[in-house]
């Protein structure tokens, strides 16, 4: 029995490289995003010049159904740059209806979180909306686990779904449990999106997320519901709403509901000035006082933002942004200038 098994393994070891040689080696595609910002502000936060994240993507199709995607960042800190693995996704496409993957993702609980995330050149403004900002982790930004996705054709629309199970939030709620789950309670998520084929860029969707999150005062049952509407042309409209429902399992404090939403409206000017895109955005966070997960992280917040993006190159943009932020303390106005770029070698195998 053992000899048969060893023989089979040996034959595989000998034959597999020969079979692999008959096919072309996989092509590794690299994409890099970067940015630099100048900020002057009334708020008591660091201003002046700053580098944003430097983001590198590696993308390779190992065979027609199996692909690997990896994303790493270098984030500037006070005394150094912090390297981080942001995403690693190994995906097997059974067909259009079912694509299975395992890894670390941008959590599909927010449109902005998955559509733009670290890709500053992709996003239509300098900063992320506060409800999905890295500094106010109302939602789990990353997700480590298993995901099933698919697309179902339905006449003039495509219906897309995702469903997943993973470690969920940890004691440090911004972390997805890269080395294992703190409380042996898995998070589950699911979502539906409907994308129009005729009205280019129109997408509506809703997502739900459920987890038991450890906290110093005991576990908290968390349910997040979110919905979005997106229109890309002729106006760019991105709007999202999310409700975070936190219910501590111990104590008599009852549940906490935090609501957050934003509406972003931009417009690409007519052909003679098509490199310019002005935009405005309204952001709002209404936190539930006393939520044990957020503590002082999520504060009552409202902001008006106006900006102008100038795509002075095919792969780089200069954006000016005015922000008027209203917080219980340290509110004020800010002015930002940002250059963001992408280095793609990805549009085809040149």
């Amino acid at each position, binding site marked *: 029995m053992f000899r048969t098994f060893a023989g089979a393994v040996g034959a595989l070891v000998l034959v597999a490289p020969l079979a692999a040689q008959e096919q072309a080696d996989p*092509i590794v*595609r690299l*994409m890099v995003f970067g940015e630099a910002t100048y900020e002057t502000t009334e708020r008591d936060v660091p201003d002046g010049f700053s580098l944003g994240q430097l983001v590198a*993507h590696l*993308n*390779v*199709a190992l065979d*027609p*159904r199996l*692909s690997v*995607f990896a994303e790493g960042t270098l984030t500037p800190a006070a005394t150094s740059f912090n390297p981080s693995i942001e*995403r690693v*996704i190994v*995906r097997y*496409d059974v*067909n*259009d209806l079912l694509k299975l993957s395992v890894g670390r993702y941008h959590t599909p609980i927010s449109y902005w979180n*998955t*559509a733009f*995330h670290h*890709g500053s*050149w*992709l996003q239509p403004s300098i900063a992320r909306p506060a409800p999905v900002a890295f500094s106010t982790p109302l939602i789990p930004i990353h997700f480590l686990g298993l995901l099933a996705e698919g*697309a179902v*054709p339905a*006449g*003039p629309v*495509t219906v*897309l779904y995702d469903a997943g199970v993973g470690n969920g939030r940890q004691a440090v709620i911004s972390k997805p449990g890269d080395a294992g789950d703190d409380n042996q309670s898995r998070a589950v998520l699911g979502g539906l999106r409907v*994308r129009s*084929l*005729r009205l*280019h860029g129109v997408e509506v969707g809703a997502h739900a997320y459920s987890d038991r999150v450890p906290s110093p005062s005991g576990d908290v049952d968390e349910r997040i519901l979110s919905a979005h509407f997106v229109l890309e*042309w002729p106006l760019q409209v991105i709007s999202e709403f999310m409700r975070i429902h936190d219910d501590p399992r111990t104590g008599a404090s009852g549940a906490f509901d935090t609501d957050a939403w934003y509406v972003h409206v931009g417009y690409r000017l007519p052909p003679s000035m*098509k490199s310019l895109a002005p935009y405005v955005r309204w952001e709002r966070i209404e936190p539930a006082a006393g939520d044990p997960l957020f503590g002082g992280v999520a504060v009552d917040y409202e902001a008006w933002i106006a900006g102008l993006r100038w*795509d002075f190159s*095919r792969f780089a943009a200069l954006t000016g942004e005015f922000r008027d932020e209203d917080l219980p303390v340290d509110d004020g106005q800010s002015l930002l200038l940002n250059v963001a770029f*992408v280095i*793609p070698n*990805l*549009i*085809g*195998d*040149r």
Partner: protein
Amino acid sequence: MSIRPIRASLLAAALLALAPATGARAHAQSTAVAIIVHKDAPVTNLTMNELRRIFLADQQFWGNGTRITLLVRAPKAPERDIVLRRIYGKSEDEFRQYWVAKIFRAEVPAGPKIVYSSDMAQELVIAIPGAITFMPAGEVGPDARVVRIEGKLPGETGYPLQ
């Protein structure tokens, strides 16, 4: 009077009568963009919605399970302009950003393969299982497999890609 000149006159008149229609059809044929697929692709006709779904990579597999390989002509070609306008509804910049975003979201492992001539498109679509591409209808060779769009072939009245 000989009958031969009368026959010749009738033939000339018939040719003149047909000329405008033939000319219009020839013009439509010359400006139309044909959609070409690999011989094993299980389609003979696509609706515009199906075509958009494929070119937008919302559909990445044919019905027989073969992965679709999208071949797109490099910028500046008139047929690319027609495809960007009629299928994608995007400008050149929006098209580029669309694929950067699609790859950034890990929705596709790669963007379209770029081809630099109709000959190259034709050779690759014949060689790569699951491939689909487009080219001027007048440059389609005898070995290429043209797909009907909304039930129509290039040059027919109502063909949507022209």
